[in-house]
């Protein structure tokens, strides 16, 4: 199965999908040492985004969040790729300086895949794909 989208930060990666319905502030929302979501009240609080294909609607909060994404990459705890509903400058900047493939505006919503399903984001081709 393949869904088209819009490439924001180049590259491709495969990993287990993690989907959040809530926007996220990386500054004070994610621990840069562990990759664990620490934002109070976030539905995925306690989950690690490290190595995952992390899908969430859009970023919020401080622009310093871009550097937190970079810190995650330097610590080896960054998501393997990012899927946003609508990219905004904080996440886009963070993904590009941290060299994390990123895509947004998927032409169809991601179906309810089983937790941990392996998906591939190819931001150069602008696609998200997985085995049925």
């Amino acid at each position, binding site marked *: 199965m393949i869904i088209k989208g*819009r490439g*924001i*930060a*180049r590259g491709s990666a495969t990993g287990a999908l993690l989907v959040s319905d809530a926007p996220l502030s990386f500054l004070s929302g994610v621990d*840069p040492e562990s990759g664990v979501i620490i934002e109070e009240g976030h539905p995925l609080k306690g989950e690690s985004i490290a190595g995952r294909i992390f899908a969430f609607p859009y970023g919020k909060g401080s*622009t*310093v969040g*871009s*550097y*937190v994404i*970079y*810190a995650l990459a*330097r610590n080896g705890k960054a998501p393997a790729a990012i899927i946003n509903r609508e*990219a*905004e*400058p*904080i996440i*886009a*900047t963070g*993904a*590009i*300086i941290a060299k994390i493939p990123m895509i947004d505006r998927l032409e169809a919503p991601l179906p309810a895949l089983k937790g941990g399903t392996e998906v591939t984001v190819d931001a150069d081709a602008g696609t998200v794909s997985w085995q049925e």
Partner: protein
Amino acid sequence: MFLESEEQQILNGEFGETRQQMMELLVGLGTVFGAERLVPIASAQVSGASYKTIGRWGLEWLQGLDARVAVPTVLNPIGMDRDRWREMGVPEEFAGKQEAVIDAYERLGIRLECTCTPYYLSNTHYGEHLAWAESSAVAYANSVIGARTNREGGPGALAAAIVGRTPYYGLHIFKNRQPSIGIAVDDPAAIKDAADYGALGYVAGKIVGNRIPLFSGIRPNRDHLKALGAAMAATGAVALYHVAGITPESRLPTFKAEVPETVEIRMAEVREVFSSIEVDAIAVGCPHLSPAEMETLAGLLEGKKVKKPFFVFAARGVIAGNRAAVERIERSGARVYADTCVVVSPALDRFDAIMVNSGKALAYVPTMCGAVARIGTMEECVAVATA
């Protein structure tokens, strides 16, 4: 997004890894904002200069970059005066890290002016495209000068500085620069001092949000406009405003003065912003003082001694060009510092209540310094300091 052949080569990595990543950033941001192409810029002003904001990881990212800026570029204010930080009471550990950030920027060819008023240091012209980050400087460049810049984030402004281009969208495009809300004042003659304009901007910014206001009836000079725009950029997200008959674009035949709604601000609301609380320090120069404001302050302090700490902030180049006024100010016991300001310096954290003559500082002092803020005119600031 359309790229010219040289831009495509940069993106392909033919001019090095840093320029490639900077071009990726411009293309990525251009895609997010719906830009069709890039536009050459005349200058850049980069934020993310304080160690307090970018932290260890921001510093590491900067240190890894290997390129030189393509256009004249300055920085936003940092946490301390580069020469007089000890006297300001800035801790040694912070100073060391701040120096490392400055060094990283200097290596990229950025001029070590850390100021929110770059327009006092080099000529910025009507119609020029810029990539500036500091909100009050963006408001001044767009509104008072008629140059064109969006409010850039730190990495976006740096990428524009290194590539010499920025995505062409938003306020770079003339049709997006027309007013969308009118602001009238019931007693415009009562708005006289820069502090009045700061207080008006403080009130107006909350009403305007991210729209483009058109003021009518008021007659501000350039220092007044600076105060008005800085306050609106702090309490709202105003990056461009017009004042009928005063700001350059309001005088163009293509200017569309008809706005869907006009809001009247009453002087009573503006006066409510002023208070008479006790303060333990005074700070002026938010945004950094102009040469004219420096001269006015020197005159007001002549022959007087300040009895409370009195901080004055200005661009290094403006201080260097106005030594006589600076000496007259410092003879009173007031201190004139470069590179930093009331909002970003940790040196002002030790005070409980700070008097300012700026609507922008009034908005930021409570959260950034953990102090109560009081606004007054420059005369009132001097009177309180010397009483």
